């Protein structure tokens, strides 16, 4: 009997994890739909890698549940890992292997391994088959890791900081192209990144994490639409940032201040008017500005 395909590629519910006294994940819930590119963004120590390790079954949930394609990665690691192409943040490939050995070894675990595609990617990445992993640069190491994650056309590509170590050309022309191709083929991509422009260009959905919590999640366009950037002008210079209720952050000096709002635009405008200011410009903030605004809001 065939089990019906799950509605979500990834479904995390109320996931919490503690390392000693530090709460690395705090009641995290998120869903990743199949065929979408999902970007996971957050500051250092936000819990992105911890979340990815739970998806791989490398960490057992202390509370909550994790399902990948409907499977529990701890109880059924083979079923989950056989569907995931994973690129680790640390690029921990065995240093003693040669590139061709790495390909040969990895191929044994995946019946759907596409040798021709692997060879094509190897050429595209400029990796010498006889080169030992330990002699590769950090960028080449990332390429080798990406190669073995891609070559069996996994149902989901899980990339932990994939851009780390890659030069801008490779990042833009190869990585992003691959991610888009994978998604266009109906497969899922989940990647974590510090580079918000990259997430902006590639992702369909995103989740923003701070201190082990998901503070913002949804379709990228919706997230951007839900945030507004207001440029406020006051009659007299303000000695300190004016208090504007509903604004995530407020920056500037003197008479002109910029506020980033999340869904409470009208409340923020009314507050600014009461404080003697007026809105002189309004547009959608960039993802970078949204991230910084949330980071500021969390730190205060």
């Amino acid at each position, binding site marked *: 009997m065939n089990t019906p395909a799950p509605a979500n590629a990834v479904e995390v519910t109320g996931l919490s994890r503690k390392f000693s006294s530090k709460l690395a994940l705090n009641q995290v819930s998120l869903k990743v739909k199949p065929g979408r590119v999902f970007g996971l963004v957050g500051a250092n120590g936000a819990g992105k890698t911890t979340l990815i390790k739970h998806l*791989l*079954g*490398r*960490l*057992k949930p202390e509370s909550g549940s994790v399902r990948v394609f409907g499977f529990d990665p*701890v*109880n*059924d*690691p*083979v*079923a*989950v*890992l*056989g569907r*995931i192409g*994973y690129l*680790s943040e*640390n690029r*921990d*490939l*065995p*240093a*003693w*292997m040669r590139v061709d*050995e790495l390909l*040969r*070894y*990895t*191929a*044994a*675990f*995946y019946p759907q391994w596409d040798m021709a595609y692997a060879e094509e990617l190897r050429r595209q990445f400029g990796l010498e088959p006889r080169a030992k992993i*330990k*002699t590769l640069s950090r960028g080449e190491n990332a390429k080798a890791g990406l190669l073995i994650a891609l070559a069996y056309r996994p149902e989901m590509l899980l990339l932990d900081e994939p851009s780390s170590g890659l030069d801008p050309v490779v990042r833009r022309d190869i990585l992003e192209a691959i991610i888009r191709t994978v998604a266009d083929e109906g497969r899922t991509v989940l990647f974590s990144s510090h580079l918000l422009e990259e997430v902006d260009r590639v992702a369909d959905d995103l989740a923003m994490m701070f201190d082990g919590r998901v503070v913002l999640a949804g379709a990228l366009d919706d997230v951007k639409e839900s945030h507004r950037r207001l440029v406020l002008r006051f009659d007299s210079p303000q000695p300190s940032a004016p208090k504007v209720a509903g604004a995530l952050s407020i920056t500037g000096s003197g008479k002109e201040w910029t506020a980033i709002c999340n869904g409470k635009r009208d409340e923020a405008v009314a507050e600014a008017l009461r404080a003697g200011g007026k809105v002189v410009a309004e547009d959608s903030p960039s993802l970078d500005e949204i991230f910084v605004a949330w980071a500021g809001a969390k730190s205060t």
Partner: protein
Amino acid sequence: MHSPSAALAWEIWRRHRPRLIAIVGMLLGFVLVYPRLCAVTGFNPDTPDALDEFVRKFLPIANGGPTPLRIGQFFVLLFLVGGPATAMLLSLLCVTWMFTFIEFNPNAKDPVTFPARLFTLPISTSFLYWWLVLGGVTAIFVLFESWIHLVRQPHLEIFGEYQDCFGWMTLMVLAQGIVWALAGWPITRLLVLVGVLFSFLFSPTWGGVFGSPWVLPTLFFLGAVLARVSLQKMRHGQWQGWTWKWAIPGIFAWTKMRGPARFSSPAQAQLWFEWRRFARPLCILVTALVAVPVVTHLLLRVALGGAPLQTDTLFAFTVVLVVIPPVIHFLSSMSPDRTHQPFLMVRPMTDGVMTMTVLKAAAIGTTVSWVAVIAMLATMPLLGDFRTVERNVSVLPECRGAIIIGLIFGSWRMFAVNHCFTRSGIRSLAGVPVLMFLALYAVAIMLSVALHSDYWVVILQRFVPFVPGLLAGLVAVKLLLAYLGFRVCLKRRLLAPSELAGYLAVWVVLVAALLAVVFILPRPPKELILPLSLGVVLIVPLARIAFSPIALAHSRHS
């Protein structure tokens, strides 16, 4: 920290704290406990040659054949005779290693490296050199004098050569020079270091050479110059870029086991991986450790026309060669390669496949290692009168094959049984094998000490009839634990039924083979048949293998 010197001293303390504490502990133990132990057992370390005392004490024990108690007594005597010198030797070697300043970094190209970060500090090469050399020499001097003057060392001719402080200082400076000069060539460095170390350990056999007043100062000077130059070269990467093709990689090329063009199964690919990851390096290490001293001696004997080794030395040499594989395999089982864990743990394979392939790779590794050892043992007759050694050991010729099988199995077992502890990812569990070893040794010492009291001998004799029952109980516990472990493995799908059936078949074959070895060849007395059979069932690993996949799963999904 107010100065670079203090910072370097702190780093040595911080990096080697457990070892330094162990050295001080050993020293204090031998100062305070050793004389009392000698008094209890009636051993007099001040006799002209403690080896004679050892033989006098041992002969009455040896009469009547080996029993667990007699074996225990033998080990206690061995400890009393060789303990202080061995502990001194180990602690001085440990300090020598500390002052080469190399650190273990499994993620680096060369896992044993001099930390390049020191070269980014605002300290001159000369300062670093003098600090390490003078610090090392001072540490060796202080430690050596402490051992010599504070510990009551049994008089042993064989250790006479080691009781030369300047010899140890020379060894340290030479080690520094070699380690720093060969920083870019790990295999060459290992071979040269092993060669120097064995030359030092067997220096008593070349008394004529090392007795010369010119040899040690010359070696010290050469070592010091090499250390200074190579530290400078290492700082600026001047030698590390050199490369040359030479015979050694070619010799070991066959061991690479490149495998088929495409692996037929994940298990086959994993076996290849484990062979390359740990089994092959272990074989190379064991081969290097046994081949370098043998080849060095052969060269001295054949090429330079040196005198044949004396029977005692040849015997000691043989024992060293035979002890190397089990020790190396035991130590390697204690340090699982954690660096590959993230890479391996995301492969779609069960913990059972991982466990079984590690066991298979270890079995291949121990067999290949023993082939190398046996090849070196075959050259022993070229070094001296090996027939006398064989006669002294009085091993029946038909037992040799059985002994070799037993040694291969023993070396594998050293590795296999620790898997369930060391792969669990739990720090406290990882230390269990060492604790078990120490506990067994302590029990042997206690039993042996008890045998000097008539009161305890009577009690122990009363206990002897219960030994088969006790062993049967242990077998029952082992089988029960194995049943529970395998049941959990199957229930949690950590182990496939076919893998379990495969291991059980191997277990039955191993038990049958060892029983055949025990019963057919040595022909034991009737009263020993039952305890020996139960002992064989006990030593072939089963329960701990059953718990290995569970331990691995714990580490995998922590």
